[in-house]
Structure formats: structure tokens, C-alpha cells
């Protein structure tokens, strides 16, 4: 293609071919942006960065309870655009690192229809996250609530004794959201 094709019609059809190829490239790259979403989930899963929906495995099965230290745990609960009542039975606990602890949440669906919900945990301060080991949690599955249904659900956890000495208080916060309409991203998250 070093020279101008003699015939104008030939040129314009050659131009159209390039146009088509480049337009396809643009469309593919638009899709690529969206493909980064599941790709990112996979990478995080492989790297073990963001396993929010999975039970934590204990490195050392018989962890020693560190009786010399107490950590204060605060429980926070929220909903995201969802008319549910969602509360822990206790707002606050003092625990020893290594001590297996259970806290119970009460959840009520105030809507007069069946709702599938998913809870997402988060931690403050953020460097406490990797030391907060959840063995059982309602956040590991999607939860189906019939209209007006109330249920009590536990979270079983222990604090890794390797928790930095500077951390004396940890906030565990849950947010419940409705799964419908968010199936795609939640499914990607749930796959982990």
C-alpha cells in the first residue's frame, strides 16, 4: 500500500476496509474494559487479596489464646438501598486474641416480598482485616428471606494473635444489599 490506488473507487473501498477493522478494534477494546472485571476478581482470588466471601483457613489449628491481651471488637451493620432491619445482638465485645467467639445478628425483611440478600464485610482499621479470621458467617452465602421473615444468624471468628500490638479496637462492619439487579458482579464475587 505504498502508493495511491489509481482508481478512486478502489481507494474508497480500501479505506472502508481499514475503517471496519479499526471500528472492530474499538468495539473489542470497549468489551475488554468490561472483561477486566471478572479478570480482576480472578487475580485477586489467586493472589488471595480479596476473599471476602470465603471462610478463612487457620494456619495453625490449635492457636494459643493470648490471655495477656484484650482486643475490643465493635459490630456495625448497614443496608444498601434495602428495607431490612439488620442488627447485632451485642454491639461490642472484648476478646482475647486466639479465642473463638460467636456473635449473633438479627435480620428482618421488612418488605412484603421475597428478597435475596448478600452481606459484604469490611474492617477498620484496614490492617486488621488479615488478622480477623471468620470461620462461619452469613456473608459466605446469599441469604433468601421470605416477606416479613426474621432470622438470627451467627458469625464465628477469632482474632489472629499476630495482630499488630498497635491495634486495640477492630470494627467489623457488614452491609447487606439485594442481589437482584447485581447478579453479574455478585456472581463473580460468589465464584470465589
Amino acid at each position, binding site marked *: 500500500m*505504498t502508493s495511491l490506488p489509481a482508481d478512486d473507487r478502489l481507494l474508497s473501498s480500501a479505506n472502508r476496509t481499514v475503517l471496519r477493522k479499526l471500528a472492530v*478494534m474499538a468495539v473489542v477494546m470497549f468489551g475488554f474494559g468490561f472483561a477486566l472485571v471478572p479478570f480482576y476478581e480472578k487475580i485477586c482470588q489467586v493472589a488471595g487479596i480479596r476473599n471476602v466471601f470465603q471462610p478463612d483457613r487457620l494456619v495453625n489449628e490449635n492457636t494459643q489464646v493470648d490471655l495477656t491481651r484484650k482486643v475490643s471488637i465493635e459490630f456495625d451493620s448497614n443496608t*444498601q438501598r434495602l428495607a431490612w432491619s439488620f442488627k447485632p445482638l451485642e454491639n461490642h465485645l472484648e476478646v482475647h486474641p486466639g479465642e473463638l467467639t460467636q456473635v449473633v445478628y438479627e435480620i428482618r425483611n421488612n418488605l412484603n416480598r421475597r428478597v435475596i440478600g448478600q452481606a459484604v464485610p469490611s474492617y477498620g482499621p484496614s490492617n486488621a482485616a488479615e488478622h480477623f479470621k471468620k470461620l462461619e458467617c452469613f456473608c459466605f452465602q446469599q441469604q433468601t428471606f421470605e416477606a416479613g421473615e426474621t432470622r438470627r444468624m451467627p458469625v464465628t471468628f477469632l482474632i489472629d494473635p499476630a495482630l499488630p500490638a498497635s491495634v486495640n479496637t477492630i470494627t467489623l462492619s457488614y452491609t447487606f444489599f439485594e442481589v437482584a439487579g447485581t447478579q453479574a*458482579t*455478585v456472581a463473580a464475587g460468589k465464584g470465589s
Partner: protein
Amino acid sequence: MSAVIDSHGTSHGHDDHHDHGAPAGLMRWVTTTNHKDIGSMYLWFSFVMFLVGGVMALTIRAELFQPGLQIVRPEFFNTMTTYHGLIMVFGAIMPAFVGFANYLIPLMIGAPDMAFPRMNNWSFWLLPPAAILLIGSFFAPGGAAGVGWTMYAPLTSQMGPGMDLTIFAVHILGMSSIMGSINIVTTILNMRCPGMTLMKMPMFVWTWLITAYLLIATMPVLAGAVTMTLTDRHFGTSFFNAAGGGDPVLYQHIFWFFGHPEVYIIAIPAFGVVSQVIPAFSRKPLFGYASMVYATSSIAILSFIVWAHHMYTVGMPVAGQLYYMYATMLIAVPTGVKVFNWVATMWKGSLSFETPMLFALGFLFLFTLGGFTGLVLSMTPVDVQLHDTYYVVAHFHYVMVAGALFSAFAGVYYWLPKWTGRMYDETLGKWHFWLSIIFFNVTFFVQHFLGLAGMPRRIPDYHTQFTEFNVISSIGAFGFGLSQLLFLYIVLKALRSGEKAADKQWDGADTLEWTHLPTPMPYHTFENPPTIK
């Protein structure tokens, strides 16, 4: 370009019988499909946006003249940093270089026009509505979005309707860039005159071929990112909403997958302009033409695999940090090749220092300095300290202003005689250069010290220990801003009363627009392609 140019069949009068001039009136500009008209409109549009973004920059610097809050509310300050960035990047610098591309590529490769003139008209006329949406967002309920030009989640999901207008503006700007790029690639691949092989193309054309591919590959990714933001805001998805199972850090990955190549989308055409100007005023061909082509291509390819160097502080694994650090440093190699080639071009050349050359040299010195601070920031441990400080602000203004903008000035002074048929005032041009480069350094050099001392960016207030450097920086900024009005005056003066320019105003220029076309140029050029041996 070292090709021997054959002048037969392309004497100056040859195009004249086709030259019916431009239709008159406002509709000429609305309906034009002429690459020169569209190039001019791009350049004027970008200058207007440059002034708008400049006023925002001066609002920022006025507020930062003293510690405490004097002039604007913090929320408004946030919108200023946001729209200053968006307007300068998408409204000023990018359209300026697209303007150069439209005007010059057909002339440099001996083509009569762009491949798709009607689409070219569309590419331009999408820009004003986008600009209106951007500026209009200031009048939306809740005001414009103070989220930073990077539009990070979760801030974007907390903004008012101004955010939606901005998202639509980004969509339209992206569409315009993609259409423009498709046009440029097609023109370069299909419409070169006989004998103009790829490796004989002027460097400016090469840089735009590479840039256009970058644009087609990355603008859709940005469009995807802001589309996800939009659906998160209004349609209940949770791509970036942590409370809905998404992840705000994912936004940063998608954004910077676009954002880092974007840096080169701005820088590479600037390299192209400088690669035309320096040889012309050294009266020597560009040193290492082929290595320039390969270096530019490798910069473009590498730019796709380094994006997370903007995100060292998000908590990525050490292996990731190391990879992004080394990959980023690797880019210094082809960039270094380019800098050495420009210097070698000047070596033993018969140099002269007219305004375009001065701006090109200003580019060479200050872009290299900005490249070095980039290398400093590429080191993870250093970046963790300097992340989001004024050191970063200083770094990217060295590459964006002293790099891209100075290169655009060099280009305007260099081609203005050809475009308008009239010379600019050389004395005033030199004044413009010296005022710009001095005030630029007054503004931004001290920001390195502010950043090293820990002053965070995007904050309207600061600790009193930072006062002196901020005073200096603000004075510099106002000096720099006012100097740009001199530029407008110089261009208008040249248009109105400039001396008649020669066909080949610069004796060292060797591209087709100088060697094969009269000054001023007829409305239609190269309807019969020249032949190059």
C-alpha cells in the same frame, strides 16, 4: 525525512485550476470537510479551552497563594482541580495535536485530504457539545463533580447530576477521538503519494500513526470505565461499590489501563512536532530516523503494561509493585534513545534559534527533567512517600506543559507562516518563549520542594510552613497565564499585519508542505499526488 523529492507534475500552479476557494459565511465552518479548515478549528477550539482551563488553574493558584481559605469554598476548589485537569487534557492538549494532525498529515504525505472528510467534520463538531456539557455541569444542582480528573470511585457515586453530565462529556470526547484516530490511521495507510514508503514518512506522521492506534485501543476502555460508573450510579450495578460486592480499586485499574497510554497519547505527537522542528533549525536530517520509529513504537507498546505504577499505595502484593517498578523504568530506555537522537541531530548542525527552535529546546530540557522525576516516582518506596503530593503535580506539569504545550507552541510558530501566509513577529515570539519558560519554572520547580516536604495535592489549605513556596508558585502561575495572552496577540498580529512569508520560510525544512506547495497554500492541495523517488 531524507527522501529525494521529485518535483515533476507538482509545480505550484498545478493545483490552481482545482482551487475554487472556500465557501463564505458561518456555514462554511459548520459544513466544511476540508482538512485545513477542520485543523484550524481544532487549534482554535483547543486554544479557547486552554484559556478556560487556565482560568481554573489560576483560581487554584489564587486560593493557594496564602494558607487558609480566602477565595473559594473547598467543594468549589475540588471542582477546579477536576475540571482544570479534564479540560486541559481532553479539551486543550489532545485537540491541539489532532488539529496539527488534520492540517499536516495530508500535506506531509501528499494526499488531497483525510480519508473520511465527513467523519472528520463530525469528529470536530462533537467537541463543542462535550465542552458545553463539561462547563454546564457547574450549573447542575449540587454543582460540578469535585472528584479529580481521574474520576475515582467511590467519590463518583456520591456526586450530584454534574457527574452524569461529565460522564456524557467523556463519552462524546472519546467518540470524537476514536473517529479522528480511525481517520488518521486510514489516511496514513492508504493515501500516501507514490514513493512515500512508511519509512520515508516524516517523523510527525509516524508519531501520529502510533498515537492513533493508542487512542483506538484505550479510549474505549475509558468509555467502559465511566459507563460502569454511570450504571453504578443509576442502574443498581456494583462494579465499584464495595457495599454491593464491587471494588473501588477495580476502577483505578481500568482507569489507568487507559490513563497511562493517555500520557503517551499526549507526549508522542509532541515528540513528532519536535522531530520536525529540531532538524529544520539544525539544517540536518533527523539523526537515527529508524531508531526513532522503533523507540516510539516500543514506548507505545510498553505503555500498556505499566499502569499500576499510579497505584502503588492501594495495597498490591510486593511482587506486583516490583513488576510495575521495573517495567516503568524500562520505558526510560526508548525515551532516552529519543532524547539522544534529538541532541545528536543538533550536533555539528548549523543551528539558528528562531522561536520554534527555542520552544523545541525548552521542550527538550524540561521534558527530560520531567522524565527524570517520573523515574524517581517509578520507584515504589519513593512513590509511597511522594504519592499524591506536589512532587507528582510538578512531575506531570513538566511533561504536560513544558513537554506537550511547549511542543505545540513550537509547532504553531513553525507552521504559522505556511498556514496563514504571514510571518509572526520574531521579537515578540522570543519574548513569549522567555516569559513562558521562566514563569513556568517559577510556578512548577518549587512544587518539587513542596512535594518533598509533604504538601498534599488537591487540598485548598496547607500548613504555614509551605507558604513561601506557594507564594512563589502562584506568582509564577499568574505570570505564565498572562504570557499566553501575548501568544494570542502574536497570532492575531501575524494574521492581520504579518509580513508575507516565503514558500519555504525555513531553509532547513524538508517536508512536502514546504518543498512542494506555495505560501499561502491554496484551499485544495495535492489533488494530483506528487511523486517521491
